């Protein structure tokens, strides 16, 4: 849990992990599954922000777009091109799902950069569910499209003997499960690391007095990096979803 960085003399007291604590929005007490927490609040804000951009921003449908409209159109066009490039034309049927995923993660990451906010995507519970949803839907699509032929994904028919093929099938099966796990660990890890580093630097700044200028400059630099990380990680999550989708649509390697 909270990593205590207490250093004698300097009076540094850094709790970089406290920011990830779930707290009830109203009143005190234990957090149940139905309790409204700061995570609920920030995920709701994420959904609102994404809807504001895509629904309200693009509502004008002007020939010469406003700033919001062109931002929405660029996001749409960019994601659509990505799906078409990676998953092919067949994959375009699932484009709404991928755009939703991309926007949710993008806005959750970006809103988490507001000071004193909460980062839902730094919790593996959130990213795990996102990756699990991708995993389940992609597997379902694979079975729906190809029936049992989808299992050919695990059957390496180029291997010489049947025994070897069975071993390889087990390996392929495990590696099929590795992907959603690494997918979620990666997003959560990236977000958590970045936000923890902010807190550590901020702790230094609090203890150094005039010398605080150095950690503050550091925070500015890391903030820039984190903006990039937020966008790239959302993009990576979406593009990996496309890659898995492509595997499910064309299981014959």
């Amino acid at each position, binding site marked *: 849990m909270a990593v205590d960085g207490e250093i004698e003399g300097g009076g540094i007291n850094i709790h970089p992990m406290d920011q990830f604590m779930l707290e009830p929005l109203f009143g005190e007490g234990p957090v149940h599954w139905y309790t409204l927490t700061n995570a609920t609040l920030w995920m709701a804000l994420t959904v609102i922000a994404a809807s504001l951009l895509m629904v309200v921003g693009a509502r004008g449908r002007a020939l010469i777009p406003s700033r919001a409209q062109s931002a929405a159109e660029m996001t749409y066009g960019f994601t659509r091109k990505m799906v078409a490039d990676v998953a092919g034309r067949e994959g375009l049927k699932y484009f709404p799902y991928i755009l939703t995923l991309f926007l949710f993660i993008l806005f959750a990451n970006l809103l988490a950069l507001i000071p004193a906010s909460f980062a839902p995507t730094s919790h593996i519970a959130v990213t795990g569910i996102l990756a699990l949803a991708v995993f389940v839907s992609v597997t379902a699509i694979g079975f729906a499209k190809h029936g049992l032929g989808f299992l050919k994904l695990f059957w390496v028919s180029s291997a010489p003997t049947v025994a070897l093929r069975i071993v390889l099938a087990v390996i392929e*099966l495990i*590696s099929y499960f590795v992907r959603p796990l690494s997918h979620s660990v990666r997003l959560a890890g990236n977000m958590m690391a970045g936000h923890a580093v902010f807190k550590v630097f901020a702790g230094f700044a609090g203890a150094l007095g005039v010398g605080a200028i150095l950690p503050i400059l550091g925070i500015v630099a890391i903030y820039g990096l984190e903006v990039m990380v937020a966008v790239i990680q959302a993009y990576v999550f979406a593009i990996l979803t496309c890659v898995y989708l492509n595997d499910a649509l064309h299981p014959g390697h």
Partner: protein
Amino acid sequence: MDNKDFADRLKRLEDRLGAATAARVERVSPGRSKYTQSSLAWRMVIELVVGMALGLGIGLGLDALVGTRPLFLVVFALLGFAAGVRTMMRTASEVRQGRAEGALARTSPNDEAARGRNGD
């Protein structure tokens, strides 16, 4: 005659467009390319570790069910490791082909321009 003229003009336009596009290929900032490359490296490491951990988990689970403590643990740790390597190699081939996330890590603008020209 007219048709040929038109085709010629189209051809010239295509050439000019191609040249203009090649000239406009954006230089990827060094910070970004470094980040995407290290991000890919992290992805591979995570895949390796997750594969191993998943194998260990499956092995321990099977052992707990059947009661043959070290047997499945050893077998599935190895299989999990192999699965991790398999996933990692798949990522590496993505990078080599410049597909999916690997396309991000491609940095040299000359590369991109050359590919654009060949693609036409």
